[in-house]
């Protein structure tokens, strides 16, 4: 049986149970889009592109709509997967991301408009949904879309009786329950929770707490990425009046 956590309490990649993977962000990589971001957590790499807010189909008075296209590159997974144009799993993830962000975006500021989000997973190494949500947060902020807060997402799982944070693909093969949670960190509200496996009722609370901690830990990292980008963009405002 493979060993997921060593006697010293270290995981296969050297992290402790409550440690996140290394994070890398690049906000605004596609200057032609309204907003874009590349976000990498461990070996999971995601590009998010935001188009809009632009003319939607609604009538006057309708709040802005958020739509999301979720796509996985054929080479993103270990086993190559031919991308299908109508992939039900991807469609579901897309609508999940869209509804997550509807609770953070101030949609009533954008009547009759549509905000189009496109997520492209370049490399999948566990926690794809969580990493995608983090990438979308950055891309929306790059697009200047008004939001009440950052949306930070993280996964938590139980392996060999230990609660672990931010699992990778290898750890997912331990078949433990995998909980993905998206939080608005400043108010600690959960805007999305997903778990697709059986878990003992007593374990759930612990998992949820850990995932929330993971999300809150991500906040300063995401904030720094947005802050750095904004600072780099300051010359665009021109010389002081």
């Amino acid at each position, binding site marked *: 049986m493979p060993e997921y956590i060593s006697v010293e309490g270290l995981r296969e990649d050297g992290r402790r149970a409550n440690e996140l993977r290394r994070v890398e962000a690049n906000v605004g990589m*596609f200057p*032609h*889009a309204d907003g*874009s971001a590349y976000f990498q957590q461990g*070996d999971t*790499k995601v*590009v998010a*592109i935001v*188009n809009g807010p632009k003319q939607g189909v609604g009538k006057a008075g309708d709040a802005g709509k958020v739509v999301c*296209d979720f*796509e996985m*590159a*054929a*080479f*993103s*997974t*270990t086993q*190559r997967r*031919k*991308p299908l*144009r109508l992939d039900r799993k991807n469609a579901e993830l897309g609508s999940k991301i869209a509804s997550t962000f509807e609770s953070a975006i101030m949609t009533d500021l954008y009547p009759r408009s549509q905000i*189009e989000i*496109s997520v*492209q997973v*370049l*490399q999948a*190494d566990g926690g794809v949904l969580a990493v995608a949500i983090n990438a979308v947060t950055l891309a929306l902020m790059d697009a200047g879309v008004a939001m009440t807060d950052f949306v930070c997402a993280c996964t938590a799982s139980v392996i060999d009786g230990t609660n672990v944070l931010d699992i990778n693909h290898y750890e997912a093969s331990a078949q433990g329950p995998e909980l993905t949670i998206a939080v608005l960190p400043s108010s600690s509200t959960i805007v999305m929770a997903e778990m697709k496996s059986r878990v003992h009722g007593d374990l759930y609370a612990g998992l949820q707490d850990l995932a929330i901690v993971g999300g809150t830990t991500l906040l300063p990292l995401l904030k720094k990425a947005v802050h750095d980008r904004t600072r780099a963009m300051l010359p665009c405002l021109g010389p002081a009046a």
Partner: protein
Amino acid sequence: MNFRQTLAKRYKQISNKGKMASKAERQFIANGIAANIRCDGRDLLDRRPLELETGNITNANGSSRVQLMGTDVLVGVKVEVATPTDDRPDEGMLEFSISSSSANATVAALDARTADKMTRSLEFLAEQLQKTSHALDLKKLCILPGKAVWCVRVDVLVLQSLGGNVVECVFLAIKAALHDTTIPNCTLIKDSNGEAVDFDISSNAYDVSPIEGVAEFPVILCFGIIGARVFADPLFEEEECADAFVLVGVSASGAVCLTQQVCAGRGVDPTTIIEAVDTARQAVKGVLEDTGCTHTSICNADGQ
């Protein structure tokens, strides 16, 4: 055929979305081409500086990314063991799949179906390139005849296309990714009669070889035509105004292995096409040198 229709349709699509150039702009671009001064000051056959990086997708056997001022193409190559087909038991497989990201579609005002058709026709072109050039010896990709061969799967993702010249970027990226690709070495396990019965794939990440013959793999260069003028590396706005395009598949040594003319409005004088083909043969060396995909560089890289 298919490609021609979809490309022509693409331009229609763009104009329907109100992104097309006005008569005055078209006139300006056409006059500029005629005067050999393009919008960005280039001569007809000048190319824009292109950025290329390889090896950025770590879980692929080879990868590349080509950026050309608003056009962004990512390629990942995966090598897998597959069972050969009955009619070609000793030949490996080389498959291409090209897709356009949904973000690209919305930014470039391309609807999903047109984008889909366009990528299908590019896939078709890629397969034709291999078929006509025989650059990669598929027999070399055979592990155990009739039992196992390598299947090289090239997946192209068009992330952005606003810089124009997507076709050329796609094929340069494919070539660069194939150069970057390594295949694990295999040892055959033989029975007492000396017959190979099974094989063992090396799990050592450094016990790998490049794909043989990859330096000869062709690229497709795309030329726009306005009037009787041929121009290289079209901008997005020039693509909108072009009368036609000529796609020329050409290998590093200058051998032409595919040509295709795509009309986007008007017919083209035969000599113009010949001019485009000749230009492609002369230009290919420079293009490949710029991207580092030349015969020599790859030998050096893998010779270490």
